């Protein structure tokens, strides 16, 4: 499903080069629930960005569903993100000028999906996160937990096989955090979606089927990972 082969990522900050990932090799199978753990700055978000095709490695190969992402054009990567990958962020990242329903519909609208189909799928997405009654509200009218559930609905509305979540509970209280984790778990169990989440939360780690510890851009315990 997801395979990283000797992936390195180096950022330049002014004159300084920062190695975010150092020759990481990793495979995540279909339907896995994986937690990436490690201290801040260890490379968790970078790894998720590479898997989502929103960043490119400095070296190495990134494969998703048999396609080598680091060689795809920007447009191909964009199309891939519309339908095959869902992304959930720590800060929800809903567009403030769209209602909850419109935020959820956005990936489908950008993809030119038929209106009737959009409405049906958005409704289903909102039902899955339990927010049908808040569909017409603006982001600033929703609580943090609700905003994150809308973000999850947006991530899954195109029914991608992979959902990537970067600290999805990092900005929520424990009750809202548990609800979000319940949802992700449900996606994994009921729909067989592959979930990869970067987290500091012990609860999230507990729910994951596999834990990948990262430190200083490497997978801990694996020499030359």
């Amino acid at each position, binding site marked *: 499903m997801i395979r990283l082969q000797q992936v390195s990522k180096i950022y330049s900050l002014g004159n300084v080069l920062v190695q975010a990932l150092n020759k990481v090799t990793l495979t995540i199978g279909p339907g896995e629930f994986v937690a990436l753990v490690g201290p801040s700055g260890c490379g968790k978000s970078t790894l998720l960005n590479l898997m989502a095709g929103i960043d490119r490695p400095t070296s190495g190969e990134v494969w998703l569903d048999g396609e080598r992402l680091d060689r795809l054009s920007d447009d191909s990567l964009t199309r891939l993100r519309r339908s095959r990958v869902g992304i959930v962020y720590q800060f929800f990242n809903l*567009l403030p000028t769209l209602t909850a329903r419109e935020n959820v519909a956005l990936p489908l609208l950008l993809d030119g999906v038929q209106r009737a189909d959009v409405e049906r799928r958005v409704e289903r997405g909102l039902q899955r996160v339990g927010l049908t009654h808040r569909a017409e509200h603006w982001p600033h009218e929703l609580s943090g937990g609700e905003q994150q559930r809308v973000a999850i609905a947006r991530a899954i509305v195109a029914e991608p096989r992979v959902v990537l979540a970067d600290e999805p509970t990092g900005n929520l209280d424990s009750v809202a955090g548990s609800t979000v984790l319940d949802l992700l778990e449900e996606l994994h169990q009921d729909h067989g979606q592959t979930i990869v989440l970067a987290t500091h939360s012990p609860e999230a780690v507990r729910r994951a089927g596999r834990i990948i510890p990262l430190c200083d851009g490497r997978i801990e315990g694996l020499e030359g990972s």
Partner: protein
Amino acid sequence: MHTWSVMRLTILRHLWTSPIRALVTVTGVAIGIATFTAIQTTNESVLRSFTRAIDLVAGRTTLEISGGELGVDERLLPAAQRLDGVSAAAPIVQTVAAVADQPGEALVLIGVDLFAEDPFREYRLVANDRPPQMEELLSPNAIFVTAAFAETHGLQKGGHLTLLVGSRRQRFNIKGLLAPQGPAMAFDGNIAILDIAAAQEAFGKIGRLDRIDLVTDERVPLDEIRARLANALPPYLTVQRPDRRGHQVEKMLRAFRLNLTALSAIALLVSLFLVYNAVSLSVLERRRQIGILRSLGLTRGALAALFAAEGAAFGLLGSLLGVGGGLLLGRVLLQTVSRTVSVLYTYLRVEEIEVSPVLLLTTLGLGSVGALLASLAPAFAASRIAPKDAMQIGSFQRTWMRRSLLALLCGLLLLTASFLLTHPGPVSGTPLFGYLSLACLIFGVACFTPQLLRLTGVGIHALCGGRRAPLLTLAAGNLSSQVGRSAVAVAAMMTAIAMLVGLTLMIGSFRRTVELWVEQTIRADLIVSPAARFVRGSQARLSDAFIERAVRIPGIAALDPFIGTRVELLGQDGLLAAGDFQVVAQHGKLLFRKGESAAVLQRAKADDGVIISESLALSRGLTEGNRLPLVLPSGLVELPIVGVFYDYSTDGGKVVMDRGLWARMGGEYGADILAIYLQPNTDEAAVRRQLLAIAGEDGAIVIHSNRALKARVLEIFDNTFAIARALELIAILVGILGIFNVLWASVLSRRREIGVLRSVGATRAQLVRIVLGEAGLLGLWAELLGLLAGIALSLILIYVINKQSFGWTIQFQFSWWVVLKSSIIALGAALLAGYLPARRAARLSIAAAVAYEE
């Protein structure tokens, strides 16, 4: 508090981190100031050059006796000389001659009595030049040109210079070159001196002078001598100090200069919108910083001062650059303006721009203080932000949303004020309330932009329902969520578009009115005039002999010799003229306010009455049936006004009488223009040939066909408005910078949103379309509001400002072309301004953008 340190750490560092916006804002201010400086410097250079020329030619003259173009009888000279208190008197004849075979080049010719000149002026020949012999000085074709003129035209002492004087080519012998001293420095050296007797003959002014210069006894008060002279001289003559002529020219040019100043002020206003915009963006972007600074103890006043200082810094930098640019631009404009003034008002020769330190300091102050004032509102708004609100995203925008209703109310009040201000009349001949009305109109319409932008977002959102046109919905949503920044950019662009639409409609309506007027009033088949008359002040005339011989040319049905003299008409400069009313009634046509052309003209001829131009009637409150007092060489006469006619050939007022009455009142002979009506089926070319034959080999006449003359009139019209059209484009350019600034800032501040859009599947092309959609919506509103404001602006220009300044009736004419033109320009400019921000949005790194913390 170490204000400077805080300013350095907050404002200057921020500017350093937003170099593009700082650059664009400073450039915008620089363009506005450059335009303003250029127009002001040009205006001032033109006037100063004229007054300096008067001073240089006047020399030590303390008083002058003149009768305008009516001239002074030379027999009055001894009387003036003998008058108690007059130390010396010198006769002067003066004209403007065209240089033969050099189109557009002219020379001021001054005829002087060289033996009477000593107390008045000094002439010096260039070094090594042998003083001329007496007979050389007095020979009929002797002329002295300046060394500068000789050098420019490749002339030398002993050579010849052919000039178009009157209606003839005349060859003069250059007897000496004048060094740059005294009168030789006037008109940038385009001046020549000749003996008075020769000049009178050459200019066709035998027995007449243009003025008598006087040097008076210093011990006797000038007013006393003036009073003595007034008693001794005929009433049509004026006795004044030479510099009074400068004031008269200043008065004559006032409306022309004021219009240019008003137009350049609009460019300046648009650039000040840009400062307002930039400081607003700064406040929006740094709301967190504002919160931190406030929590650290910075007072509201100090915070406001910081942002106001930012605006003032933009203003000062822009003004410094603008003043430099304005001087360069002024050099370019100077030629156009001096040419227009030479054709329409008075001969001028200005080569060098004159830099007045006072003007430069005033402009610098205007730019800086204007920018400071423009930044006060956002600075005040920043100071009102509570520290806790500053940390909340969007709180400032929500404040703006609340304010948009207030702005709408202000807009309505300003528009009402604008309407009411169109009613009062001029203040000392200046349409002061008209200009205020324009300002209220522009600010009033600008006040509508916040609410309209909000409604746009809401409207498009409601229409699309989030189910269709997602890119447009996003674009509209972005604009309405950032009302504060978007509204000012729309206001700036709207002002530029309003100026474009207003001027285009006004100029178009004016042109159409003139076209109709020309079409209906220019009916002669051929129009003959002296070639030298292309410039004001030439006074060149066709002789009576020429007219008498022309009458006898076969195929000519009728002739109308038109002759005019510039005189003072009820305290203002105007044209007193005569034509053959019988011929005009039969063959030509004038457009009268009341009555049919032929009937009015015949009645005027029969009643010994006059017809007057609409501008004179309006400015002096005259109407049909009134009596017009005229002070003429024959004395004071009061003539009945039989008709008021529309006339666009002069803004100083015109009085026309029948040629018969003119002759009885001692008017001069000859004609400025000879309108020729041909019999049917006459060979026009054959008549032309015969006219040229009559003029002779040395004749310098121009023969226009009916069509060519109409085209020439419209050509002069178009040239007159060339500067106005250039100013339109400058305002548009500044408007583009405003939209660019907003979209650039918008893209920067929405990095995270853009990243999210990209991460959920928006392609780069879609991102470009969203930003261009925003630009398009900004452009669309700027166009719609600008169009409405522009139409209102043109109505104010036509019915208030032009009417009060020049007294011309212009028929308003709407043109769909202006809608198309302004739409293309507004949308094109907006999309152009949006292009770079759109590209930037599309190229943002998604990973970096989603990690960006607002």
